[in-house]
């Protein structure tokens, strides 16, 4: 089989305004994001023949978006998803273009994540008992929020590897520092100190509000096309070197074995597909629904050895200027939250050197990684280059 390495590119990225209360619908936010991405690519809306989205029943459909862009697409796809869906849909788009079905695909995530449905507040208990594998062994005990589900993994992992609350704080401080350089970050102008971080009470251990992603109203969009078609765009293409994903765990009820996460299995395949190693990565977007989720992935993707991740982040390596500048727009902890797409947009902008001449640019960066995590059972990641 032919490898897809360097034969597909992200040619446009864009976002809507982000706020606590958009006062509008996800369709409007999606239109704003899509138009921004189309303009960024230098395309016309009608150049796009495929539209894809991931949602939790909280968005508009791809068909609606295409309709109101004035496009009659060949293909639409809406999946239930969240973390890692950006990477997986990009893989789907590449596959459909490779199969000769489509030319150019727009992928978006649009949600009123603050004024509409709020993930962090938990879900309907009876729905969850049925929807989660083994849900009746979890929900009756009060565990209904991702912070509690992933927290169970975090406590054990931190115990085994020596990661402390202060280490988690370094993840937060690094991303908040990046947000101070990004006027569009939701927490721009709200820096965080270690003293404040450590003084903030936990909501559910080991996580306080700073360890937890934002919940906002926002739309994001990304346009994928072939390397040949990318030549027709006005933007600088960012090429896809490799992708990998995994949607399983040793048990569908993932608390059955909290020592494994799907990211552990994705990393090897990802680096093989891309033909690079962790040492080759200049800039990173690591899925950050919670601070510890970043730590666990730094281990999984080989950026620091198990047991040394705490020290790695405490040394400032996630900051611009560190060994692995990560979530350089502020990430989901402090920029915005669209289940990962905002992090993917940022890695594209870094690799295009959109910020050249400013403190936001990771100097000389050529290769970047973007990871997704929907939970211990679902991971997807891609490696990109300029």
């Amino acid at each position, binding site marked *: 089989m032919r490898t897809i390495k360097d034969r597909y590119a992200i040619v446009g990225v864009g976002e809507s305004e982000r706020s606590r209360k958009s006062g509008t619908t996800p369709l409007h936010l999606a239109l704003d994001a899509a138009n921004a991405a189309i303009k960024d690519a230098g395309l016309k809306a009608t150049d796009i023949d495929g539209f894809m989205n991931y949602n939790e029943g909280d968005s508009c459909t791809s068909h609606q978006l295409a309709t109101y862009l004035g496009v009659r697409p060949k293909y639409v796809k809406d999946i239930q998803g969240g973390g890692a869906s950006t990477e997986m849909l990009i893989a789907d788009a590449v596959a459909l273009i490779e199969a000769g079905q489509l030319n150019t695909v727009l992928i978006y995530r649009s949600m009123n994540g603050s004024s509409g449905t709020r993930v962090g*507040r*938990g879900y309907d*208990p*009876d729905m969850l*008992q*049925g929807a989660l*594998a*083994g*849900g*009746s*062994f*979890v*929900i*009756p*005990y*009060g*565990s*209904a*929020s991702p*912070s*509690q589900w992933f*927290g*169970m*993994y975090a*406590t*054990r992992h931190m*115990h085994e590897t020596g990661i402390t609350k202060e280490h988690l704080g370094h993840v937060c401080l690094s991303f908040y520092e990046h947000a101070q350089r990004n006027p569009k970050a939701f927490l721009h102008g709200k820096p965080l100190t270690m003293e404040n971080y450590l003084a903030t*009470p*936990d*909501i*559910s*251990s*080991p996580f306080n509000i700073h360890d937890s992603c934002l919940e906002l109203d926002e739309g994001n969009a990304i346009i994928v096309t072939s390397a040949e078609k990318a030549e027709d765009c006005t933007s600088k293409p960012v090429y896809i070197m490799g992708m990998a994903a995994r949607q399983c765990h040793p*048990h*569908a*009820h993932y*608390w*059955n074995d*909290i020592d494994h996460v799907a990211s552990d299995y994705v990393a090897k395949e990802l680096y093989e597909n891309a033909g690079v190693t962790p040492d080759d990565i200049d800039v990173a977007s690591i899925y950050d629904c919670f601070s510890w989720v970043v730590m666990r992935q730094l281990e999984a993707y080989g950026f620091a050895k198990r047991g040394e991740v705490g020290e790695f982040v405490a040394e400032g390596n996630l900051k611009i200027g560190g060994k692995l500048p990560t979530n350089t727009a502020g990430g989901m902890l402090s920029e915005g939250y669209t289940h990962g797409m905002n992090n993917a947009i940022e890695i594209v902008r870094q690799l295009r050197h959109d910020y050249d001449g400013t403190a936001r640019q990771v100097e000389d960066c050529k290769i970047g990684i973007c990871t997704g995590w929907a939970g211990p059972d679902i991971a997807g990641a891609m490696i990109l280059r300029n």
Partner: protein
Amino acid sequence: MTQSTTAYQKPIPLKDIDNAPYWDAADQHQLALQKCDDCNAYSQPPGPTCAKCGSENVSWEQFGDDITATVYSYVVSYRPFLPGFQDELPTIIALAQLDKVPEVKIMGNILNCQEKDLEIGMPIQMTWVDITEDRALPQWIPATN
């Protein structure tokens, strides 16, 4: 053992065709675990077949009511994420590693436990809380000896 005095507000475990023997045993203040007759793996939570090998030859093993374990992991929640927990904060939610079957971990709350005393590895004992007239919920308390 705790007897509920007011109407129980928290979610009650939903029995289904696969997990009913576990919850039926719990209602009798007993622990039962599903086990594969082919590969000998325990399936917790139980399912239609063995989660390890897919075999349909699964049966139930009774463990009685003297169930000891240690804390494998835990979270302490200071906010209620479900109805009924608002009056019992903070809530300790733990994964208990069974002494007799260490590969089996069972989630539950640790009752009668101060947060400051909570740690990974601490010995705990299963207890059953009668939550309605005919239902009981397996829970954990710190081991006394």
